[in-house]
């Protein structure tokens, strides 16, 4: 868990604070700093055949499902050998063989898609589940409503993980919905809803595992609201001056990675030398991926014409 948390922090820092500023990554840059525990806790323990639908702030999901950092950085940098061959950026990709559905920019649109994946999994009958992520801002989209209702009506094995990071771009959650907790929407659709501390990776993990076990057993969907905080702007260009400094300071003290580290150290599960070793390994992995992506070719212009349609082999 700690490895994925720290890897995400390091890789996203490189993307947002270094490569974007150097002009080596173009376009929109969205990261999940401060909320890494939501993704790691919810998606770290899945089975073969399970499917994850990660958002643009769920970096670790890709790594946990087997994407290499090299592949991920190649996509960020628009390389010809990245998963989208330069056709789309950031984390807008997937691979059905590895159980990852790629999202699009239209928020919540992937929630009905997750339901369709779950319909296929249910039909397969091997107890597989779909974990689908979305933000509290996205919860205002009609697609999220349609999907949650649909999943409940059809009793589909879907775990809806709402990452409530308090801000939808510049709009605070209080202007997105009038309930204190989005978890109450679960029962409104006919599924359990639970709110957890999204900065406590073990709490997210425990809640997710309960929901996953329930879904595997045919009990249908669940909603988990993970309360966390976006410690960055909406995207790299956004200085987020609309977020009160005091709030940022409060949440900085609750940093999910420092908190988990402290827990592991005080419980003597982890030693300081082992932690340093992990940090060094992660640095090396990120350095390698960036170097690999930078050395990789950019796509040739005319390849843009290929693959609009899928042709059978």
């Amino acid at each position, binding site marked *: 868990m700690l490895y994925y948390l720290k890897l995400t922090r390091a890789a996203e820092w490189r993307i947002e604070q270094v490569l974007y500023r150097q002009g080596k990554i173009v376009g929109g840059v969205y990261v999940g700093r401060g909320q890494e525990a939501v993704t790691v806790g919810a998606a770290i323990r899945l089975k073969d055949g399970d499917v994850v639908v990660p958002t643009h702030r769920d970096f670790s999901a890709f790594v946990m499902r087997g994407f290499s950092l090299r592949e991920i950085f190649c996509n960020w940098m628009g390389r010809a050998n990245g*998963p*989208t061959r330069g*056709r*789309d950026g950031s984390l*807008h*990709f*997937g*691979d*059905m063989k590895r159980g990852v*559905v*790629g999202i*699009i*920019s*239209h928020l919540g*649109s*992937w*929630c*009905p*898609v*997750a*339901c*369709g*994946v*779950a*319909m*296929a*999994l249910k*039909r397969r009958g091997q107890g597989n589940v779909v974990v689908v992520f979305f933000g509290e801002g996205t919860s205002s989209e*009609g*697609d999220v409503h*349609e*999907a949650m*209702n*649909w999943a409940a*009506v*059809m009793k589909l094995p879907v775990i809806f993980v709402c990452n409530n990071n308090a801000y939808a771009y510049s709009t605070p959650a209080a202007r997105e919905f009038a309930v204190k907790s989005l978890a109450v929407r679960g029962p409104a659709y006919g599924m359990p809803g639970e709110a957890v501390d999204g900065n406590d990776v073990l709490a997210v993990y425990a809640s997710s595992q309960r929901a996953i076990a329930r879904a595997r057993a045919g009990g249908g969907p669940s909603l988990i609201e993970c309360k966390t905080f976006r410690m960055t702007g909406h995207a790299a260009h956004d200085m987020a001056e609309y977020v009160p400094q005091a709030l940022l300071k409060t949440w900085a003290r609750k940093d999910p990675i420092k908190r988990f580290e402290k827990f592991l150290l005080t419980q003597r599960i982890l030693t300081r030398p082992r932690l340093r070793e992990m940090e060094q390994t992660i640095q090396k992995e990120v350095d390698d991926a960036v170097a690999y992506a930078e050395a990789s070719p950019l796509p040739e212009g005319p390849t843009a014409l290929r*693959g*609009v*349609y*899928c*042709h*059978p082999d």
Partner: protein
Amino acid sequence: MAVLTYLDAIRQGIWEEMERDPSVFLLGEDIGVYGGAFKVTAGMLEKFGADRVIDTPISESAIVGAAVGAAMMGLRPVAEMQFMDFIACGFDQVVNMAAKIHYRWGPPVPIVIRGPSGAGVHGGPFHSQSNEMWFVHTPGLKVVMPATAYDAKGLIKAAIRDDNPVVFFEHKFLYRRIKEEVPAEDYVVPLGKAAVRRAGSDVAVITYGAMVWVALEAAEQLAKESISLEVVDLRTLLPYDEDAVLASVRKCNKVILLHEDTRTGGMAGELAALIAEKAFEDLDGPVVRVTAPDTPVPFSPPLEEYFLPNAQKVAEAARKLAAY
């Protein structure tokens, strides 16, 4: 061969594909117990079971989105829009999700979104639209509209077997009005290929959907006046059969572009541009459009009648063009 209506031909095509391939399944509103608002899926729940004929909530976006998800898992969903007008509620899933997935990161998205479109049954502004061009302008989709019962069966089967998202417009005016001998055996009509419905020499009428029958009626009338119309049925609007359009223009040297859809931004404009680019030297007269005007589809019968192109309007345009 049995005489089938256009509607029964679609139904038979879907039925055969359901029998042939267990990965094909249906989802939509009221398609199971009720058999669909127009009965296209009548009897399918009984035959294929509730796992393959799925009544859904009234959630067009989720219908298309779930179809996309299931398709990426290897299934072949056929999603019904109760009326094609309602696809607007699932627009994002069609044009942003389904159309672009393969291009972006690879998986095929073999879905068919089908349903009744078109006017002539006094359905009013929200049950009568010809909204095919919303999708013709979206790379990655295929857009199909059959005019005959034979094609309706062959095209729906080809659409279901295609590995791309296909938006399949059925014309509700034709559902029970068109009756033809349709082979009981398996056949497909390939996507992307037009058909010459009537060979002629003076004026080419390039059209699709219910307007094919309007063009044929006009051709019959004008034959008595020794004006020979050629009628080309596009059948697939995206990708459309450029060669067939140009061949007919080069043969007749005069062309009418006819559709039930409204004028601005319609298929006729696209074809006019193609003809101007590639067959300019072959033209002996102006390219003429006969289309519905740029209004919503009105409800009251005299308004709807005024709105719709008909054989008289086509014949009038053809007479003028023939004399040019």
